[in-house]
């Protein structure tokens, strides 16, 4: 990671240009400065902190870019309503550091370099909504469990922070699934339950992405105006991007929101070969053709205007030498296996879509197969308890659109890709070990 103006979260050393590892609390405080004790001092009331968060314009970095202050106010309102009605249920905070998207590495990079920043953010978020309990969720087997564990052990916080490790399943990190699991349920999404009203054990639950909380830790130090002074005013601040595929230096980079995509790619050493389209947002995201994306500012609204999605901040340049049909089919198959198997259209629809795509990736596909695929894509959308199937549909539909010339070639029994696609070589989309599909019902592996 090279020295650059604009980096806030990642502790990049100005002299060496390297990112430092601030796992020691003393080194962390020396780098970022001390955390003000929000919620304690008379002039540092939670309401004042909430105002700073509002002023900052911070939007969540877990995928939805939802305004953080608005979600916090909803949690507070729900808790107030409860306490006037019944025994009064205190809000809970869950830091979502699950990083379910296989092409995303930003939360792990952030936690391995600045674990205390995320934990500071948890303290601030808990103070803002009045939570006395806070959990940080890392997926089982995550590489940063030890770092986070050691960081928690060094601290004395006004709120008790506990590390939890839900199963490493794509949908386990959806917020209602996370809250359900934390309350001793299965890690599966719950229909029609919004965690801010009814989350862990029925309590108002604030779920925020790890990066969102790191930004919050800096807002708690420097104020909302400071935060809002950088980046796109519609979605201010800096943001982490996991850049992968056909670039010279794949990895995580921090840029102000609104940085043009070609600038982000240039900071990663540029494209290393021909690329027809890039994947934005991950496997629940969208493909955009290169010529339509390069000049676009990396910020939610401009990216969605060209059919893309920032989501959890993923940008993957797929080499033109790799068959995109094969990539899309493999990812769809993996995503089908990640369904919680609760909702029919997801449980049966996604494997069917994956089967159609496997035909398309081969050389005997017919126009009937593609017509059936398109019909099924229309059938699966908007019918699940969570957005998992909708994300897959977007990933596939935008892929068929962005790679229309390749679809046409496959229909003619040809493939334009030159690379030998087996074994999986560099530049192909990552696929963690998957499961057998179809899923029957959420079972042991969601415990």
């Amino acid at each position: 990671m090279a020295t650059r103006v604009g980096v806030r979260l990642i502790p990049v050393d100005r002299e060496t240009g390297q990112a430092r590892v601030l796992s020691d609390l003393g080194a962390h405080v020396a780098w970022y400065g001390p955390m003000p004790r929000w919620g304690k001092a008379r002039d540092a009331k939670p309401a004042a902190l909430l105002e700073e968060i509002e002023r900052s314009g911070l939007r969540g970095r877990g995928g939805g870019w939802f305004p953080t202050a608005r979600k916090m106010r909803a949690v507070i309102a729900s808790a107030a309503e409860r306490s006037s009605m019944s025994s009064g249920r205190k809000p809970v905070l869950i830091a979502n550091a699950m990083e379910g998207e296989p092409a995303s590495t930003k939360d792990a990079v952030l936690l391995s370099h600045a674990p205390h920043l995320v934990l500071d953010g948890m303290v601030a978020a808990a103070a803002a909504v009045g939570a006395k309990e806070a959990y940080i969720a890392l997926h089982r087997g995550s590489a940063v469990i030890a770092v986070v564990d050691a960081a928690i052990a060094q601290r004395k916080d006004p709120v008790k922070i506990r590390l939890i490790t839900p199963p490493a399943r794509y949908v386990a990190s959806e917020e209602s699934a996370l809250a359900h699991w934390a309350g001793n349920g299965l890690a599966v999404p719950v229909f029609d339950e919004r965690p801010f009203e009814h989350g862990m054990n029925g309590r108002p639950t604030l779920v925020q992405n790890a990066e969102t909380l790191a930004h919050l830790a800096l807002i708690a130090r420097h104020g909302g105006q400071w935060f809002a002074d950088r980046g796109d005013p519609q979605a201010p601040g800096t943001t982490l991007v996991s850049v992968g595929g056909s670039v010279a230096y794949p990895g995580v980079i921090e840029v102000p929101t609104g940085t043009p995509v070609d600038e982000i790619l240039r900071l990663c050493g540029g494209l290393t070969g021909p690329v027809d389209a890039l994947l934005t947002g991950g496997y629940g995201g969208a493909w955009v053709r290169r010529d339509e994306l390069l000049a676009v500012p990396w910020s939610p609204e401009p990216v969605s205007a060209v059919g893309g999605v920032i989501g959890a901040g993923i940008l993957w340049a797929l080499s033109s030498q790799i068959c995109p049909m094969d990539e899309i089919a493999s990812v769809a198959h993996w995503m089908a296996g990640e369904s919680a198997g609760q909702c029919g259209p997801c449980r049966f629809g996604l494997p069917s879509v994956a089967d159609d795509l496997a035909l398309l990736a081969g050389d005997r596909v017919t126009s009937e197969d593609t017509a059936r695929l398109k019909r099924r894509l229309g059938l699966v959308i908007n019918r699940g308890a969570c957005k998992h199937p909708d994300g897959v549909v977007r990933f596939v539909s935008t892929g068929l659109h962005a790679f229309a010339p390749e679809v046409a070639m496959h229909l003619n029994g040809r493939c334009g890709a030159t690379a030998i696609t087996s074994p999986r070589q560099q530049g192909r989309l990552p696929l963690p070990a998957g499961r057998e599909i179809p899923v029957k019902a959420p079972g042991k592996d969601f415990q």
Partner: protein
Amino acid sequence: MTGPEKVRQLVLDPTLCAAHGMCADVLPEVYELDEWGYPVSVSGGLRTPIPAELVSAAKRAVRSCPVRALSLHKP
């Protein structure tokens, strides 16, 4: 405003629905079954606006679902 007034909302919980298909028999104006036997609403999603003239049929559909996946709400 166009179309008839929507007075209720019929909500389908997809985690409960087990493709019994009664709803499509009782309320063909709203649901048809997909290739896997699960109901697809005319409105596309899980929440279907129900006009006054269909409210009693919708109530029957709610009662006929063996797993109580359907519920009728004021919008």
